[in-house]
């Protein structure tokens, strides 16, 4: 199924829940059926709108986790304890429930195999979501564009899509984890926050002119982007998506 950038006025569409699947203790993927979904590009997001019965509304943006190759729309959501929308999406929603969403939007933070590589993806926690859509699409199209994913999580049990990433590793994709708070026994990987040295080791170097996508909480993105620029990467080659404090 070809994904196409949406032209024309955006409308709020009704999306119906097909299933809710736990990824980790705090993260769930909600699968939606969206009639007349126009398709999307990997990396794009949707705006979700919820209305309570007294008319109160809340709106949040969520990256699309599923590749355009799937017929359904998946959103992977981390439950924030003091969140307003994420606890609803992860704890309350059931099959058959309906929400409104608008999109897809955000052609800026998009990667498709036709753009080439090498590809460097840097994810902090739930920042993996749009990058996973890119990797899923890369796999579904059989692309061999060289790609590296540097993925920061709190602990091994917090790694979203852990098994699937293990499965995707290879075929030109290298998945590198860093676990910042706790590591399993025998862990020999990175055990600290993403920094300049780590990025330099994980590569690719600036001279290879990789396409770089960084996604996660604002402080994470800020630090990673700064480190990448200081390693010589062109700012124009670095695309960032900050989740900001209002995510949730």
């Amino acid at each position, binding site marked *: 199924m070809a994904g196409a950038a949406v032209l024309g006025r955006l409308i709020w569409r009704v999306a119906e829940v097909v299933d809710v699947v736990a990824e980790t203790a705090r993260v769930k993927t909600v699968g939606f059926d969206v009639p007349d979904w126009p398709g999307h590009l990997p990396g794009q997001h949707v705006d979700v709108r919820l209305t*309570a019965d007294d008319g109160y509304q809340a709106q949040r943006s969520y990256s699309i986790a599923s590749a355009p190759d799937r017929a359904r729309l998946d959103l992977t959501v981390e439950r924030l304890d003091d969140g307003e929308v994420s606890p*609803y999406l992860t704890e309350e929603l059931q099959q058959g*429930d*309906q*929400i409104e969403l608008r999109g897809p939007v955000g052609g800026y933070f998009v990667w498709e195999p036709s753009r080439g590589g090498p590809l460097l993806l840097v994810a902090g926690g739930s920042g993996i979501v749009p990058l996973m859509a890119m990797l899923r699409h890369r796999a579904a199209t059989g692309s061999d564009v060289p790609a590296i994913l540097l993925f920061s999580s709190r602990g091994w049990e917090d790694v979203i899509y852990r098994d699937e990433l293990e499965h995707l590793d290879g075929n030109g994709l290298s998945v590198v984890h860093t676990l910042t708070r706790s590591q399993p026994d025998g862990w020999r990987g990175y055990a600290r926050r993403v920094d300049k040295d780590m990025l330099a080791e994980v590569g690719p170097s600036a001279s290879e002119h990789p396409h770089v996508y960084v996604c996660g909480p604002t402080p994470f993105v800020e630090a990673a982007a700064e480190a990448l620029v200081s390693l010589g990467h062109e700012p124009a080659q670095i695309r960032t998506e900050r989740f900001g404090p209002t995510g949730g």
Partner: protein
Amino acid sequence: MPPLISRGFKGRRRDDAPPDRVPPGQYVTNDFPVLSAGPTPHTALDQWDFTILGEVDELHRWTWDEFQALPSETVTVDIHCVTKWSKLDTEWEGVSVDTLLDGIETSAEHVIQFSDGGYTTNLPLEDVTGGKAWIAFDYGGEPLDPEHGGPARMLVPHLYFWKSAKWVRGLRLSTADEPGFWETNGYHNYGDPWREQRYWGD
């Protein structure tokens, strides 16, 4: 087509409050949401000053120390944001605008608040006098956080909260009204929450 209601969605715990405390279209919150139009300024107190200028005989200026030496009041007020949240019984400490304007003669009928970062908002002068407005520096018994407008912000609780400039640095008194940052861009020129004056033409 009205928006779809999502089963079971409640949003943040919203208090039931007596209707005479909650303007139309507002929802009472326990949080204190942070809204911003730009990067948070961080002005050091030894750089900070507050100025009253414009339609006055001479410019009036207070350093932070001079400002702190002025008589201040603790007030408990309800605040209403145009983005639909209201917060009841918020406690502030600040200097009344009446105190600052005491002894200042002016023919101005309008005042423009101006802030670090370039934000402005306009009001009739009578809406900041007579015990209706303060330059607040403490919130909830603590020094005002930069993200909430610290070191000092305007507090004009009878109007939507965009009329209370964060990081305020002064007042310009004017004979002519000068719509400010949001008033020139769709938000109502006066902003009375009880008449739901959110946007132009409301």
